[in-house]
């Protein structure tokens, strides 16, 4: 094993040092450079979207209108959602895929390196357009990130045209990124790296990439219909012309529901790498993890209308979507069971990646349970469009997806930089995040059950105390993320040099065959996997 890695390092040092300066990043075709850019871009968007969340929480700190106009409040909720989904979570996963998949499967790079660069660099432009639309006459998008018609057609500001085209670019970026991932995995595995030997992060991303290619074009289709309804006189979503506003919701959620699994399946892969590493045991039930992931992806195509229980669908349809949705808890339960079983009788240690992974398992499961409650049609009639829904999807997206991304960053940071991060500071980041995220989102369940509607800048007086607590949690969570920035910068600039395998329980080609800091080109000649 070690002889392979020695040859590797020599080879790389002689021929392929990265170019210097800004143009290195603009013109690069290197999967690690592109991965880093994705991750930094994602973090910048995380802070931008986070700043908007701070505006929302400041406004909701007290009842009555405090700081912003209702229309601006709507723009904040809308753009916060769009940025977090398309700008923070998805690019972070694509960045991790770029960095890790070639190293994990023993490939020299991604399959289509120039297209990889293009996929990344169109993203900042897309978000420039979206953010610029906030400053235009009539304001930016104010119809919620789900842009339901007719809010996004008849009643939308003119800037909806820019919103539509920026979503098109985000979609093109995701599709190209997904094609790259899928082709890399199918075609560039090292000899002996069979499908059932793939690390679960690679497996989950393979399935995620399939979902992306299947549903991002549908999103492109529905924004196109919004554009023609608003500007070219079509009536897809207008009953007066024979269309139906509910049609919008069907097409949107046909994209939107697989989309939420796009934002969580790679997390499952990350957790499935970290839990065994710090439990010093093999992952329990590898094959069942693969099948569970595939089942979740398959089911994700036939549950979309559980977002639409209150639109007046026939009762047969409501029942079908209710039962299908509940079915998803079976493969998801398999996963949670397997993670717990992996830890059972393991020699567990609690470094920061493991702490985030443990928090993920508990908090994601809470989000899963509230999802199960929302899946029950008659119950959803009451919860629909309340803060209960907001609590639910923030539990799965913030303490789910975002926590897993944080876990991944801490876990692989030593491999990316060759240096160890400051464990004390990182633990501070974890505990601050863990406490504040629960102060922020847990009381939202009660607000929702009490009947507080989402996306409204004002509320009835009885919600005042809980909202104040929620806002404080929000500010604390926002500030805590600056600790993360500090940890990463400190690690890059002055971290302690580390070894090839700083986590003794970690497994995979990236730990076994590569030096402490992964070289610029990892596997120019593919390693033999036994």
């Amino acid at each position: 094993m070690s002889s392979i890695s020695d040859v590797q390092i020599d080879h790389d040092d002689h021929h392929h040092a990265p170019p210097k300066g800004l143009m290195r990043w603009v013109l690069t075709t290197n999967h690690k450079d592109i991965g880093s850019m994705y991750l930094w871009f994602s973090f910048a968007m995380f802070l931008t979207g986070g700043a908007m969340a701070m505006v929302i929480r400041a406004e909701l700190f007290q009842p009555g209108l405090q700081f912003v106009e209702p229309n601006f409040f709507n723009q904040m909720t809308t753009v916060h959602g769009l940025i977090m989904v398309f700008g923070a979570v998805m690019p972070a996963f694509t960045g991790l895929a770029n960095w890790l998949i070639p190293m994990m499967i023993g490939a020299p790079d991604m399959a289509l390196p120039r297209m990889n660069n293009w996929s990344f660099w169109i993203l900042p432009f897309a978000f420039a357009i979206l953010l610029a639309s906030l400053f235009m006459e009539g304001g930016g998008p104010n119809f919620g990130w789900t842009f339901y018609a007719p809010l996004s057609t008849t009643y939308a500001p003119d800037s909806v045209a820019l919103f539509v085209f920026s979503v098109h670019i985000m979609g093109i970026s995701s599709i190209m990124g997904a094609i790259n991932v899928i082709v890399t995995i199918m075609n560039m595995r090292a000899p002996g790296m069979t499908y059932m030997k793939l690390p679960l992060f690679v497996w989950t991303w393979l399935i995620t990439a399939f979902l992306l290619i299947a549903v991002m074009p549908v999103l492109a289709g529905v924004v196109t219909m919004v554009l023609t309804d608003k500007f070219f006189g079509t009536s897809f979503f207008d009953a007066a012309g024979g269309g139906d506003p509910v049609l919008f919701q069907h097409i949107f959620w046909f994209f939107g529901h697989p989309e939420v699994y796009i934002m969580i399946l790679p997390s499952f892969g990350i957790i499935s790498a970290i839990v065994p590493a710090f439990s010093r045991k093999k992952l329990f039930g590898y094959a069942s993890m693969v099948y569970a992931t595939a089942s979740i992806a398959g089911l994700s195509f036939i549950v979309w209308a559980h977002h639409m229980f209150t639109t007046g669908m026939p009762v047969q349809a409501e029942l079908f979507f209710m039962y299908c949705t509940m079915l998803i808890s079976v493969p998801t339960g398999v996963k949670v069971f397997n993670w717990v079983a992996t830890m059972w009788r393991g020699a567990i240690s609690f470094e920061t990646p493991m702490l985030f992974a443990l928090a993920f398992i508990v908090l994601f499961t809470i989000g899963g349970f509230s999802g199960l409650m929302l899946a029950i049609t008659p119950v959803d009639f009451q919860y629909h469009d309340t803060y209960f829904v907001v609590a639910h999807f923030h539990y799965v997206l913030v303490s789910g997806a975002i926590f897993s991304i944080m876990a991944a960053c801490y876990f692989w940071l030593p491999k990316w930089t060759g240096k160890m991060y400051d464990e004390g500071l990182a633990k501070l980041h974890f505990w601050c995040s863990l406490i504040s995220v629960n102060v922020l989102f847990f009381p939202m369940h009660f607000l929702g059950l009490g009947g507080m509607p989402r996306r409204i800048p004002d509320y009835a007086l009885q919600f005042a105390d809980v909202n104040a607590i929620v806002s404080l949690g929000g500010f604390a969570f926002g500030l805590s993320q600056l600790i993360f920035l500090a940890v990463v910068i400190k690690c890059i600039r002055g971290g302690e040099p580390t070894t090839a395998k700083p986590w003794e329980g970690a497994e995979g080609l990236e730990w076994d065959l590569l030096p402490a800091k992964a070289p610029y080109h990892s596997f120019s000649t593919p390693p033999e996997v036994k």
Partner: protein
Amino acid sequence: MSQAHDNYYVPAQSIWPIVGAVGLFLIASGAGFTVQQLDSEQGWGVWVLSLGVVVIIAMLFGWFGNVIQESMSGLYSEQMDRSFRQGMSWFIFSEVMFFAAFFGALFYARMIAVPWLGGASNNAMTAEVLWPEFEAIWPLIKTPDGTTTQAMGWMGLPLINTLILVTSSITLHFAHVGMEKDQRKPLKLWLFITLVLGFAFLVLQVEEYIHAYQEMGLTLDSGIYGNTFFLLTGFHGMHVTLGVIILTVMFLRILKGHFTGKQHFGFMAASWYWHFVDVVWLLLFVFVYIL
């Protein structure tokens, strides 16, 4: 994998992706402004859009130029050829899903939205109160708010166009066979015929649109029937246009002596794309025109 791994060619830095990113930025923002300025005097958005198109065309020339050069100088291995093939297949799958969104809208309108407006399911009272005059028929020649139009029949131009496209798929297949057998003469001849057929399809399609707008009163804004008709056939027509352009480039490259019987990914991808566009048309012909 069991196959032997050749060295995988990882291209060095490239200027073209960032050029393409700027081009897409200009196209997207330009298109956004153009749409916003549809009703106003000042139309500078369209200039931004056009500039973006020029940049993208330059990018395509430069990028594909690089790829062709690398391919001709033998840098590409069999494994890379597989990457390209798989990439193209997944791209076509994404196109399938794009059309699926519009077919979905069509089916929903026909099976659910229009019948419900006419009182089906549990909507009898709604129909009675809102639009008692409304008749739920397809093609929807009279919308609830009273816009009327005519339905496009499938005989005549659409049938001729179907025959043209199906024939073009067959001739393109003959060209492909010629390519694989390294018989350049039949290859050029069949590909040329395919191009002529593709072009003829586009001319007839424009003819049909003129007929619809000027004589039938069937327009983009004449209710859900016109909406689905024009967006489905329109996006299909755009894909045929792109297919004709791609095949023209392939024709020129073949005249220059590019490709061999074993190595012709570019031609094969173009041919896959053309067959895909053809299949979409067949679905269109059945669901938009005939049924």
